[in-house]
């Protein structure tokens, strides 16, 4: 089966490489949900990779498959030289401490009966048999790092906190194990704009302070752009476009990226609301369209689009698109500054 291409992979220097990842779920009566259908991407150490696309396109499935929760149907996930899909249960559990995940709904991902200090220390006591003074110290350090006063919050329970504070607790819980990679699955989608800004800033600070590598999943390209060094646009289990965030904004090549950009609400009344709107709904992943999966909703669709799947190709330096008829983009200039 043709994948979506791998020309954008950066080879052995990557900390994480995901190749030809396929995730299928049985859906009764021999039907299969094609949640993720052969996607590839890699992440350099210290980089933030943004994964953007609408609900149901397979972002969370991809994030969970990286953690082997569950292991993918096919494909490879290499993390720091180790093939995650081949690890024994025990090795996998150990490796997972270095790859943590945080979720969209911060409140329900915390055990309501436990105190904040125990929630945050959970991983430590399991992994390092480490319930003593150093553990307390570590818990206090990460709570403080995420902007919570350990003295005030340690003995409280999650229901006493707002959504934004619960997300801070989740971040602290992920940080306590000194992970290399944190996969953030829609960490701000359930939060108010004002709290969202606090959490986005916090993630940037934590990345700096702890030298983290992040995967940042969201449906809003404005949010993804703010924190990412490289963005992968996904649609119905496939990769559409890969580029630096500023390039993607300045020169979107894929028609779906156009739509994602046009959907962002502009806080400017002088800026007319775009008359571009995505038509219809995401097709069922049980029966995805042939050829280009976006063709049922694409303004530029041609006959070729249903006959042949577009492979990812480089159309400008470090700018990749999977479309038979992409937008013109300038070939020489690269819109991104240094992505340090």
């Amino acid at each position: 089966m043709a994948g979506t291409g791998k020309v954008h992979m950066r080879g052995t220097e990557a900390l994480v490489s995901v190749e030809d990842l396929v995730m299928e779920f049985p859906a009764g009566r021999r039907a299969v949900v094609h949640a993720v259908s052969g996607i590839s991407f890699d992440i350099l150490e210290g980089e933030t990779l943004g994964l953007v696309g609408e609900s149901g396109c397979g972002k969370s499935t991809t994030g969970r498959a990286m953690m082997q929760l569950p292991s993918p149907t096919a494909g490879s996930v290499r993390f720091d030289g180790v093939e995650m899909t081949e690890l024994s249960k025990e090795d996998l559990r150990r490796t997972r401490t270095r790859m943590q995940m945080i979720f969209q709904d911060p409140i329900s991902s915390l055990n309501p009966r436990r105190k904040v200090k125990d929630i945050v220390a959970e991983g430590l006591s399991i992994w390092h048999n480490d319930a003593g003074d150093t553990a307390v110290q570590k818990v206090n350090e990460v709570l403080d790092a995420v902007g919570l006063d350990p003295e005030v919050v340690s003995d409280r329970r999650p229901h006493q906190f707002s959504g934004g504070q619960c997300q801070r607790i989740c971040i602290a819980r992920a940080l306590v194990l000194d992970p290399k990679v944190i996969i953030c699955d829609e960490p701000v989608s359930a939060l108010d704009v004002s709290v969202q800004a606090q959490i986005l800033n916090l993630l940037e600070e934590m990345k700096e302070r702890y030298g983290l590598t992040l995967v940042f999943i969201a449906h809003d390209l404005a949010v993804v752009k703010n924190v990412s060094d490289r963005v992968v646009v996904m649609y119905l289990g496939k990769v559409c476009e890969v580029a630096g965030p500023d390039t993607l904004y300045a020169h979107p090549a894929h028609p779906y990226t156009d739509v994602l950009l046009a959907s962002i609400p502009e806080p400017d009344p002088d800026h007319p609301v775009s008359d571009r709107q995505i038509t219809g709904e995401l097709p069922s992943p049980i029966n995805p369209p042939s050829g280009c999966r976006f063709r049922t909703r694409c303004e530029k669709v041609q006959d070729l689009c249903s006959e042949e799947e577009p492979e990812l190709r480089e159309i400008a330096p470090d700018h990749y698109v999977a479309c038979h008829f992409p937008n013109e983009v300038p070939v020489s200039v690269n819109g991104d500054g240094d992505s340090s």
Partner: protein
Amino acid sequence: MAAERPLLEVENLRTYFDTPRGILKAVDGVSFTLDKGETIGIVGESGSGKSVLVRSIMNILTSNAIIPDGSEVFFDGKDTRNLSRSEAKHFWGTQMAMIFQDPMTSLNPVKKVGIQITESIRYHLGASKQEAMERALELMVQVGIPEPRKRLKEYPHQLSGGMRQRVTIAIALACNPKLLIADEPTTALDVTVQKQILDLLASLQEELGMAMILITHDLGVVAGRARRIGVMYAGKMVETADTTTLFHHMNHPYTEALFKSIPRVEHQSHTRLDAISGRPPDMVLDLVGCRFAPRCRYAQEQCITDEPDLFDTGQTGHRQACFYPVGSPENAEALAANQATGITAAGLDLTAAAVS
């Protein structure tokens, strides 16, 4: 234009709740008017009282609610607080209708979509089963639901979030209300679906001539959609203006802060966001002074002792409640003074402010 009476007049509305912790002042003296066919956006962060405000207007509060004397809501010239329970129930649907953030809260999970739409039509309009079904189909088409006949036979959980919200819009429109209240109708949806729903609401509104109250926590959502905007903070309206004026002459520091916290896609990646530090106050407490003071970069002594009232800025229809409005020389002085000491009169540390 002749001075026609507004469709909705809200005057000094206060809604309190009797809670085990004490009296919670969820809405504390809000006034605004809304003309026929007009859209007002109400913006504020979680807990600022937006939902309680519109629930008070709709008369659908829980039994622990207290509405002190002096609060008034007139709809089409009628005092809605004097409606009997059955009158209120009829009002609901035929005059005003509401859609919610989570469509599942207003849909019954164990009833087919078609039954839910027709029930409402039959109840309010006394239509026959046949007529109601025809109207339901018409509405499904109007709100852009593909394969409406098939969808009418489905349960809510078989629909996507966007489709469910379309169904609740169809139910809301069933009786041609004069006012549609949309309480964060797109907060739980993807940006792409949000765009679809907001476009749908705008076109329906134009077609049907309804007035609309559009509630959101995101100034970006109302910028292109509302003619006027009211910004709420801790139960109070702190700034109101027509949309263009509000964006060009933001006066209240809270409005400014809400605006600045939005990540802008046109900004370079890794641009640090101007987050608002801290949290809104606990509204069970007796709040003295300006409620925004603990989080405000400009706060001075006066802000801690005196409560600013809403007053006219000089621009028509623009009112705001701040002693040191953004853009004024007093504001620049206040900021300079605070920056010089590194701390505001309310104790906000300006050097570390962005994190917590």
